[in-house]
């Protein structure tokens, strides 16, 4: 790609494992097979843009496990990283350590090396300004399966240039005090096919531990544990899914649908993860164990209100 010398940009020295541009995602296209997408961990996405004093739906760079290594060329710019992330800035051959949730100044020729997420999956890079990205159906969120959104629907590639625009004046060195909780108890609501499973299977589903396998990505989390035996039918007529739905495959293994999931599916739905636990769910890395706890709709709605209040408090305390 030709470099435009008048512009501020990042050069991608290492793309990372699964780095994509994301925003709030796209609504109202499930009926043509296009899922929400959007940042997986919504709270950390919101905090990233809050710290950068951006519009709440500004594009961020999401990364998983190992993040990108980026060389910065341009005028001084504020950046921040959210999540539980280990990263450094290499400035004139010196390694500088910083923490997440605070504005950091990046200078010309600095190298930002996002090494890894700690016992979690996703992290976010936001800038005091805007990544120059393409929009598709009202969102820049990259969906690599449908090949749509920013970066022509692809993950970040080695050697590519990311141009920046609307660079802001350097932001005050404010910090949000936030601790990512590592709760591995996930609360669910009964799904429409709860009665497809034997009493023993349901007891086991709600009391045993399940392993998060490596076959987990932005589309879904595959679990291994005790087999959930079906007493009715292992297939249903395909029907709509939403994120958080837990389907039980014909083999008796649970799969949880995440933000890039296929829009319809033909396995029975034993439960749905409550909205308030979704951010925590997506951050559980392969190799961890999770347990499900059933609650009712009313409690789920109350817990969501508390979750929302907590997010709003973090935002207003920062401002």
């Amino acid at each position, binding site marked *: 790609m030709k470099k435009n010398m008048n512009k501020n940009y990042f050069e991608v020295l290492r793309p990372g494992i699964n780095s994509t541009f994301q925003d709030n995602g796209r609504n109202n296209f499930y*009926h043509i097979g296009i899922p929400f997408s959007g940042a997986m961990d919504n709270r950390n996405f919101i905090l990233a843009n809050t710290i950068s004093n951006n519009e709440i739906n500004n594009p961020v760079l999401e990364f998983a496990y190992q993040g990108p290594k980026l060389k910065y060329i341009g005028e001084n710019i504020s950046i921040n990283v959210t999540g539980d992330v280990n990263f450094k800035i290499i400035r004139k051959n010196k390694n500088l350590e910083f923490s997440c949730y605070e504005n950091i100044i990046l200078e010309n020729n600095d190298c930002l090396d996002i090494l890894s997420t700690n016992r979690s999956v996703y992290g976010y890079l936001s800038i005091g300004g805007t990544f120059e990205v393409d929009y598709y*159906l009202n969102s820049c969120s990259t969906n690599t399966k449908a090949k*749509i959104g920013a970066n022509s*629907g692809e993950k970040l590639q080695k050697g590519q240039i990311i141009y920046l625009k609307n660079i802001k004046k350097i932001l005050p060195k404010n910090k949000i005090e936030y601790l990512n909780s590592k709760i591995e108890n996930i609360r669910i609501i009964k799904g429409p096919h709860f009665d497809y499973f034997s009493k023993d299977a349901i007891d086991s589903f709600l009391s045993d531990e399940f392993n998060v396998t490596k076959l987990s990505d932005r589309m879904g989390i595959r679990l291994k544990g005790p087999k959930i035996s079906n007493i009715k039918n292992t297939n249903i007529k395909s029907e709509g899914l939403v994120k958080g739905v837990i389907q039980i495959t014909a083999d008796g293994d649970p799969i949880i649908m995440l933000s890039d999931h296929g829009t319809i599916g033909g396995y029975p739905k034993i439960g749905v993860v409550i909205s308030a636990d979704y951010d925590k769910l997506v951050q559980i890395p392969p190799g961890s164990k999770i347990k499900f706890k059933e609650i009712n709709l009313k409690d789920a709605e109350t817990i969501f209100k508390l979750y929302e209040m907590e997010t709003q408090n973090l935002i207003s305390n920062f401002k």
Partner: protein
Amino acid sequence: MIKNISNLGDAALYCDFGTEVNKEINRNVINYFNNLRDSNFLGITNITPSYNKLVISFDLKLTSFAKLKKQVENLELKKNNNSKNNLIKIPVCCAEEFAPDIKRLQKLLKINEAKIYETFFSKNYYCYMTGFIAGMPFLGDMDKSLFARRLETPRVKVPKNSIGITEQFCNIYTFESPGGWNIIGKTSVDIFDNKKNTEPNLINPGDTISFYPISKLEYEKKYE
């Protein structure tokens, strides 16, 4: 009509229209889908029609299950709100290399190749739903003589634009993807165009599709 509305988690409605798969039930689903899209009820983020269910997801910050359920129950349906639905003609090339399962089907169905295609092309198909992967239409119903089970072992990669059949349904693979349907041809038309920023998909739920055969030469011309 809707038999029952329950919650699918805390941020979606699960509308049940029955357990059978037929056009009459699905037309009801699509009618609700079209009416809901015109309704502007606060907070709806997605509406997914399928054979006999309608899933409506919503933003829990803006509305709730109880509120939206009441609105859907009291929705005044404009009858036959299907002005959005079209008849679409899809060209199909049945050259041997595009139809890897035609030999298997001849054996399985005990009908010769010419008759399989004659039967396939003689019918119009109704789009029950689109999805799974972006833009993929689920069409039916096939003539009973062509009901065939899926491949025992699904293919890891089915080429983009392949036409597949299984049981009472046929579909079009809008992207290269894994799949277990019997592949009998390939279309030269992109059913999902990821370059188009408005209405990227050619076929919508409720549309009618007719397939017509084209030669290899005509197929290649489209790609010149």
